[in-house]
């Protein structure tokens, strides 16, 4: 067995001094402002203006992480958002997993460590996988962990442990996250040369412009470039442009703000990190733009060659960027490996920064002729028709082996500690793709460019494959003007004056998807993030996968943090090469939001803790909180007590006490959450006749009636009582949870199906407090509370409703019940609810009036078999099944749900009928959902003959009871059935579901 990889990290970094990889003068870092930070428990120093990545490079740290699958040591590969190797876990108060070191601005006290390495990046036990790689091919997880089928949960945990990217912070995220809505005429994404030109032009026209850029400062590629504009460094033009933009009152510019998602109708989300207000950690902008200009630039892609993932292999543009923007040498001795002209400029920039550039290894036959003289002057050798066969050095590049076809294919070793590579440039078409566009292959740049824009969007500059600075400025200007003009701002027809730029050669790229590998076992990485090699793609094709979407999923290429930013085009190109098609016909995978990771905090915004779902309150909620109410959400976001426990009482004790009080004395229940819909208009009766199963024509004023409302598929939508308050005014009560669903149902019928009906609905749930006094002593309490009407049985009958005063408060009292006891439901304006509650409690004191919670109410209704929507009235049972056939008016030609009910009868056959169950063991309470099984049937499909819909211990019967749906249950009265419970089988006797007062004498008393 081979020993684990040893590191070659420079020991001198122990001494916390800015190392010698820092250049003396170059770059945009502030050398007077030192920042101390810690990485993997070591102390380092960087400068203001550094990213964590540039500071690590300055300190000579070469290994920053371990790869996902093989745990190979990895180093910083890029200088931007596309980084797939330098993924770190931020520690301390700012703990956050999976932060890209290349985009993280350095700050004093920053503390981070590598993810995916145990026990450390330099000695990683998991790297043993590296030597078993031939046993971990593409689709390994699918193939290996399939057996035994039920053990995936076990495998999943084990794999997660070794594979994980970072760990979720244990502490709550510090700081605030917020959302902001924004509307603008023109949204410009990207503040590189193109975006700045676009924002300037659109801004000058007077349009409202939002300019966002994901870097700490505007400038994009120009921040790390030696380009010249109008005879000065390009960065001067950037500074002038930014100054003008920031002075425009109609332009908002955001830095460190990534456009993460592009949705329908120009709706984009933009994640702003560290915004202007210090207390806001991240701000998610939700932007609706009339026009969008995408100036998102391009990302250099690596070449696919053997061991292209060694620390010290870096994108050529990134290497140059570190020198020019951060004043950091990513190495001392470099070799450049390329297939295009763009890298020649980078080679010069590296050389001019003090790096010894030994050679440019060019895959093409013809190098950039224009650069030859400059390269010769710097002693940089050009090796055309050459490739890199091998990269030496495990912890850091130490040399490369070059094979030149001109030189008889002999290997030549060149010592270096930096290999700057370029495989071409990938325009950032992700947002265009998210907007619904289909990127198209462009052979000139061997990559994909935006296709037709389905929304009011246009791409400009490098993100549509135009890499020349002068073209970017021109396209940016034009796009800004066109976007502003499309919004009606066409006064300014010139935009900015186009400055003169330094000349640039054509890209002249030789499309290269895989550099010839020296050995069968060589690995060339396409997706560094997920450790996907070119061999994996070949394997996937051999195993029958052709579609890029399937290859992606089978190999996991492009599915990690990278999301295809660096690897996608190489994968498509290689797939095309293997299957002998054109990259254009392979097509891209669909890019989906988010373009770059979004924290959960930003998604939630201020909707966290208590604000996730604000509770609705009734006038009595505070009393319950103060008096032992066990509050929970019980529908429509109302917070109400399940029971009201006295000190020392368990939930069961409290529910039993409350239930006994209602049956034997008097209870009081807060029914305020009950849905209420006021109905007016001359056609109300017709309307009620159509939406309820029964007839409403004969309901006198001052009476109410129970109604059963069906969906048109014949299933229960809601049941409740509707009152006739006056000649043309009705009030419907609905279940608490379905109040809005019922309103939608009714409004839709009125608006869309029966616009001829003259009926008006008003939801009034919150306007009225509803308190229900129930129990044999309820009448005494009503009298004690000074109810100013005759509440005797003869004068105030069951289902009567009366306007009166209770405890001096204007009220409407009704004889309705959900407990089956003598009940008075008192409705007062919400603002009087609490006063009435207090008055009733003191009026009932001598009768020991007992506040009752909704769990108790559920028990009481179970004893009476009052149907509950969602339990007994489920998506299968019809009105006859639940024993409510008496509510159907057979003489009505139609009502909502009638035709489906008729169809059930036409079909016939066994039905799930509601029955009561008396468990054989009196203290065994069957739980909701327990199946009732037929033990005599061998046929598995036929075994389940019913289901418990609710079970309780009934203190009034002093035994357990349950309601159940049972196949043809009403013909099984007295039978013993078998219940299948979690742990064992139990038996129960089938009985009449109404356990208490089957004739309903109590509620009429």
């Amino acid at each position: 067995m081979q020993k684990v990889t040893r590191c070659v990290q420079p020991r001198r970094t122990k001494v916390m001094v800015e190392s010698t990889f820092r250049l003396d003068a170059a770059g945009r870092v502030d050398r007077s402002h030192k920042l101390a930070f810690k990485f993997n428990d070591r102390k380092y120093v960087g400068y203001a203006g550094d990213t964590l990545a540039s500071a690590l490079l300055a300190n000579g740290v070469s290994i920053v992480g371990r790869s996902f699958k093989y745990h190979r040591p990895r180093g910083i590969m890029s200088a931007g958002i596309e980084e797939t190797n330098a993924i770190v876990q931020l520690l301390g108060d700012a703990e956050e997993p999976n932060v890209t070191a290349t985009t993280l601005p350095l700050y004093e006290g920053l503390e981070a460590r590598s993810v995916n390495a145990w026990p450390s990046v330099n000695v990683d036990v998991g790297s043993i996988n590296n030597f078993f790689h031939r046993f971990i091919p593409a689709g390994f997880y699918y193939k290996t962990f399939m057996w035994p089928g039920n053990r995936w949960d076990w495998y999943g945990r084990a794999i997660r442990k070794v594979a994980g990217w970072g760990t979720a912070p244990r502490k709550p995220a510090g700081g605030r996250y917020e959302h902001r809505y924004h509307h603008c005429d023109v949204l410009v994404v990207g503040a590189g040369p193109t975006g700045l030109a676009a924002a300037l032009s659109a801004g000058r026209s007077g349009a409202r412009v939002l300019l966002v850029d994901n870097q700490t400062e505007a400038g994009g590629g120009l921040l790390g470039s030696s380009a010249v504009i109008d005879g000065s460094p390009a960065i001067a033009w950037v500074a002038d442009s930014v100054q003008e933009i920031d002075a425009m009152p109609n332009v908002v510019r955001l830095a460190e703000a990534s456009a993460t998602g592009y949705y329908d109708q120009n709706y984009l989300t933009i994640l702003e990190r560290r915004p202007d207000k210090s207390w806001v950690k991240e701000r998610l902008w939700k932007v609706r733009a009339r026009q969008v200009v995408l100036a998102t630039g391009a990302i250099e892609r690596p070449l696919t060659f053997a061991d292209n993932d060694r620390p010290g292999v870096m994108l050529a543009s990134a290497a140059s960027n570190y020198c020019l923007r951060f004043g950091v040498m990513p190495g001392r001795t470099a070799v450049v490996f390329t297939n295009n002209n763009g890298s020649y400029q980078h080679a010069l920039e590296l050389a001019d920064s003090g790096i010894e550039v030994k050679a440019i290894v060019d895959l093409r036959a013809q190098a950039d002729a224009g650069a030859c003289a400059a390269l010769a002057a710097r002693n940089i050798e050009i090796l055309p028709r050459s490739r890199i066969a091998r990269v030496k050095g495990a912890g850091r590049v130490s040399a490369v082996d070059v094979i030149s076809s001109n030189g008889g294919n002999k290997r030549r070793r060149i010592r270096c500690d930096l290999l700057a590579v370029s495989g071409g440039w990938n325009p950032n078409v992700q947002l265009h793709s998210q907007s619904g566009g289909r990127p198209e292959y462009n052979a000139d740049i061997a990559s994909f460019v935006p296709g037709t824009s389905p929304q009011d969007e246009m791409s400009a500059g490098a993100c549509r494959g135009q890499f020349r600075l002068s073209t970017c400025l021109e396209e940016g200007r034009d796009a800004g003007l066109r976007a502003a003009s499309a919004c009606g701002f066409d006064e300014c027809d010139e935009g900015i004056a186009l400055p003169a730029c330094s000349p640039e050669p054509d890209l002249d790229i030789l499309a290269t998807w895989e550099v010839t590998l020296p050995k069968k076992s060589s690995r060339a990485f396409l997706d560094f993030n997920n450790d996907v090699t070119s061999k994996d793609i070949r394997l996937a094709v051999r195993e029958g996968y052709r579609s890029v979407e399937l290859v992606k999923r089978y190999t996991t290429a492009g599915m990690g943090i990278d999301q295809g930013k660096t690897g996608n085009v190489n994968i498509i190109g290689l797939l095309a090469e293997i299957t002998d098609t054109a990259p254009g016909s392979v097509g891209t995978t669909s890019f989906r939001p988010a373009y770059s990771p979004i924290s959960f905090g930003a998604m939630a915004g201020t909707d966290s803790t208590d604000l996730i779902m604000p509770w609705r309150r009734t006038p009595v909620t505070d009393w319950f909180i103060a008096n032992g109410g066990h509050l929970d959400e019980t529908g429509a976001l109302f917070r109400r007590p399940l029971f009201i426990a006295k000190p020392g009482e368990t939930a069961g004790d409290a529910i039993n006490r409350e239930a006994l009080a209602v049956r034997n004395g008097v209870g009081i229940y807060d029914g305020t959450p009950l849905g209420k819909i006021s109905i007016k208009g001359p056609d109300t009766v017709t309307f009620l006749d159509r939406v309820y199963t029964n007839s409403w024509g004969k309901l006198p004023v001052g009476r109410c009636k129970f109604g059963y409302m069906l969906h048109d598929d014949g299933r229960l939508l809601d049941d409740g009582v509707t009152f006739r308050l006056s000649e043309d005014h009705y009030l419907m009560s609905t279940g608490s949870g379905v109040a809005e669903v019922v309103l939608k149902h009714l409004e839709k019928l009125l608006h869309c199906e029966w616009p001829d009906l003259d009926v008006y609905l008003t939801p009034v749930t919150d306007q009225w407090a509803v308190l229900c006094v129930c129990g044999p002593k309820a009448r005494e309490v009503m009298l004690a509370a000074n109810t100013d009407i005759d509440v005797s049985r003869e004068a105030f009958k069951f289902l009567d409703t009366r306007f009166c005063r209770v405890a001096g408060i204007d009220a409407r009292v009704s004889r309705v019940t959900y407990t089956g006891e003598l009940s008075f439901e008192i409705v007062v304006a919400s603002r009087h609810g609490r006063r009435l509650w207090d008055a009733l409690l003191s009026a009932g004191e001598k009768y020991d009036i007992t506040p009752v919670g909704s769990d108790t109410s559920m028990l009481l209704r179970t004893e009476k078999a009052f149907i509950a929507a969602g339990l007994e009235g489920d998506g299968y049972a019809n009105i006859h099944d639940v024993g409510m056939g008496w509510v159907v008016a057979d003489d009505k030609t139609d009502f909502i749900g009638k035709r489906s009910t008729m169809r059930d009868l036409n079909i016939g056959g066994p039905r799930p009928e509601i029955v009561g169950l008396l468990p054989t063991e009196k203290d065994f309470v069957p739980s909701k959902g327990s199946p009732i099984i037929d033990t005599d049937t061998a046929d598995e499909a036929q075994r389940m003959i019913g289901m418990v819909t609710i079970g309780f211990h009934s203190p009034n019967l002093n035994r357990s009871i349950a309601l159940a749906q049972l196949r043809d249950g009403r013909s099984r009265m007295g039978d013993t059935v078998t219940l299948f419970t979690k742990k064992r089988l139990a038996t129960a006797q089938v009985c009449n579901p109404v356990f208490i007062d089957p004739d309903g004498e109590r509620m009429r008393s």
Partner: protein
Amino acid sequence: MIQIDCPYCGKRNEDEFVYGGDTGHRRPEDPAGLSDAEWCEYIYSVPNTRGWANETWWHVRGCNRWITIQRNAESNEVRPASQNESHG
């Protein structure tokens, strides 16, 4: 998040609305006159047009009206319904 142009309130975000289905899917005039199969066709075969369709939306967090718009289910483009299609 699409924007819906409410004829009463103007352009509003989709989350102010509740989707109400295809306007062509009207309740039959005489359910009793339909066979079981025909009735089931109405109940369960809900139109799901690819491309443009007239749809009702309930502006529940706005004017409380049911409105009719045209929406393209492929592109999510929204445009006003022709006059004779609108309700209420």
